[in-house]
């Protein structure tokens, strides 16, 4: 039981870290047509995430893998019932990944245009659909006692689901704009900062609406009412969101980015805490919900995986932070002139 609970929160943490890291890549890709006025701007933008996006994306693979390993039934029901949404995400991620690599390989504006479009689609679609998917999980999915999904892709596009999608897109756009602020100078940096400034009140508004809508569309608050101490998570998230604005005004972009990262992790945990012990609640009947009790792996598998995670995740975080510090400086002209640059 303790083991399952530990795994539940690790599961939430891995998704949160994925949103926190790859989130700014999605945001940059979403802002790409808007902020990337010239080819130079565009190259600055993709080279700003260039050294890091690949490692960031592995958090998704890890989150998926850990869902499979620790909660095989959730893995099986979640991905088969969200079939169309997940496939759209995967195809979008494929487009995004190859676009970075392919874009600069042929010197022709039409060629670049194709991959520019793919970078946008490949970033916006996952950002939106991950939000839609998680909001739907928060409110429950129409699955029956056999875990069979009674709905279509459009079932997921309900108001609360779409609200979640918009929330994710906004979170990631600001997160991405701030990363651009960290890694660029001059005009692009100014425009990125002003975009973040303009988006921030919108995000605040949507976040407030989402918190209120969650009261009516989900049962997330039950756990908070039962254990009011958890309200601190919401409080920290809101404070983090407010400090994004504060640091942005002071032009301390790294701090603003860090606050935005904390906001994303907090937003994910707001839902995860509310879900417990459910991983994949059924909207048809609470008894059909997949929980830490009925969907987990055997204790042996959970123990083995815990050892693996305790050893490797700190190591991964270690070398990922090392990579981040290597590439936290401004992208320079010399960087762009380099052979292998995107």
């Amino acid at each position: 039981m303790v083991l399952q609970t530990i795994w539940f929160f690790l599961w939430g943490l891995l998704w949160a870290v994925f949103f926190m890291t790859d989130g700014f890549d999605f945001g940059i890709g979403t802002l790409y047509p808007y902020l990337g006025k010239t080819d130079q701007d565009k190259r600055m933008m993709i080279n700003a995430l260039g050294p890091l996006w690949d490692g960031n994306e592995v958090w998704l693979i890890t989150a998926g893998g850990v869902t499979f390993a620790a909660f095989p039934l959730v893995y099986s029901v979640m991905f088969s019932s969200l079939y169309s949404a997940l496939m759209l995400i995967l195809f979008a991620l494929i487009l995004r990944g190859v676009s970075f690599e392919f874009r600069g390989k042929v010197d022709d504006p039409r060629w670049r245009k194709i991959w520019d479009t793919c970078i946008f689609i490949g970033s916006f679609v996952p950002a939106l659909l991950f939000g839609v998917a998680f909001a739907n999980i928060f409110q429950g999915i129409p699955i029956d006692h056999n875990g069979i999904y009674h709905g279509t892709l459009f079932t997921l596009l309900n108001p609360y689901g779409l609200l979640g999608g918009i929330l994710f897109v906004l979170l990631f756009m600001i997160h991405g704009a701030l990363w651009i602020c960290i890694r660029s100078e001059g005009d692009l940096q100014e425009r990125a900062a002003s975009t973040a400034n303009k988006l921030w009140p919108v995000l605040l508004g949507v976040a407030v609406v989402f918190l209120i809508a969650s009261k009516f569309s989900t049962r997330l608050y039950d756990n908070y009412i039962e254990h009011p101490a958890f309200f601190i998570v919401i409080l920290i998230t809101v404070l983090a969101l407010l400090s994004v604005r504060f640091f942005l005004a002071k032009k301390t972009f790294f701090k603003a980015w860090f606050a935005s990262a904390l906001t994303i992790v907090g937003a994910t945990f707001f839902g995860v805490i509310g879900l417990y012990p459910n991983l994949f609640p059924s909207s048809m009947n609470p008894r059909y919900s997949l929980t830490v009790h009925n969907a987990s792996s055997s204790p042996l598998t959970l123990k083995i995986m815990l050892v693996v995670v305790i050893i490797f995740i700190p190591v991964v975080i270690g070398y990922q932070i090392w990579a981040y510090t290597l590439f936290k400086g401004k992208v320079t002209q010399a960087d762009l002139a380099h052979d292998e640059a995107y």
Partner: protein
Amino acid sequence: MDVVLLSRLQFATATMFHFLFVPFTLGLSFLVAYMETKYVKTGDETYLRMTKFWGKLFLINFAVGVVTGITLEFQFGTNWSRYSAYVGDIFGPLLAIEATASFFLESVLIGVWIFGWKKLSKKAHATVMWLVAFASSLSALWILIANAWMQSPVGFTIRDGRAELVDFAAVLFQKYAVFKFLHTISAAYVLSAFFVMGVSAYHLLKKENIEFFTRSFRIALGFGTIFSLVVVIIGDINGVIVAEKQPAKLAAMESLWETTTRAPVYLFALPDEKNEKNKIEIGAMPGMLSFLVRHDINAEVRGLKDFPKDERPPVLITSFAFKGMIGLGCYFILATVFGWWKRKRLIDNPKYLKLMLLSIPLPYVACELGWIVAEVGRQPWIVYGLMKTSDAVSPIAVSQVLTTLIAFILVYGLLGVTGFYLIAKNALKGPELVTEN
């Protein structure tokens, strides 16, 4: 068209496409790391240019390989959810460990390698590529342990209506997994060696950058010769293991219908699955199969008729793929050993160079054929002897799978054309004359 067939087609499309790029990554990462180390040690600029040139091809290929791998992990959930629920306790951890323990290292460090030329010392930069190379091969190890478990399930018990792990060491260290890994990884190294030799041959034929491509060719030749031999030797051991663990697959590979002592190997056999016999048999070598799999020409080998009809794999596909793979494997040994003999005078052997240029696609074919033997030969089982493929599929609609199958074919088709176009374009263009460090 039912969900099972469509899902199988989709998985086959996705994996076979993915595996057009994986072996190249696995092998070329070591070759590039070796070239870069030579540069660090000797300070010879040619090695730096080699690192950059082959590195560029490596990166284009790597991008397609990575993005197409992601869909695979999720397809076990989207399309094979009953499989995932039934064996997730054993199969899930293997995929999760692959991501945490190796794929992470590979993906973080590849970014460091691409963008880190000026940020790291020369030595550190070369070390990063070595780590990428080891991490990729380590990734392959975990994936192949997972596949080996589907071929030869061990270390589990059936509890609460699913397979549960009881002995993790048995899963990790079973000989099926060890030899499957060694066989697949050597095949991958052969593929990358043939690619480097083929592209080098093209430029040597045109008498361009002779020093550059002679060196590249020789490095790949050494690598390729060793692993062409290893892949066949390990393959032979694999045959013994398959005979023990998956006798129906072995019988299909050799299109052997009757259980018999002194079981033969046919040079060519055309199976007739309906009438349970071979329509044509050419070049029978009596006792050869018994000898190969049991090391005794009089040993008994089980034929297909020993298995119920609904537990036999498709014989025609399995046996043809197997024969094709063996033939190509032998060719790779001949081609590399011959090259070894001529290695001092490559430029004077245009016919051999032309042959090597034309041989580039062959290891790709051999790798795909190998997977066809492994996966089609396992049918009708998804986990051999434990779960049928038809019981493993997700409760989803035909229209859903049909849509995504078409999307896979279109997107991957375009991706494949673009990827190989860019690789070919850069390969044929040749290296930059001067390379900044």
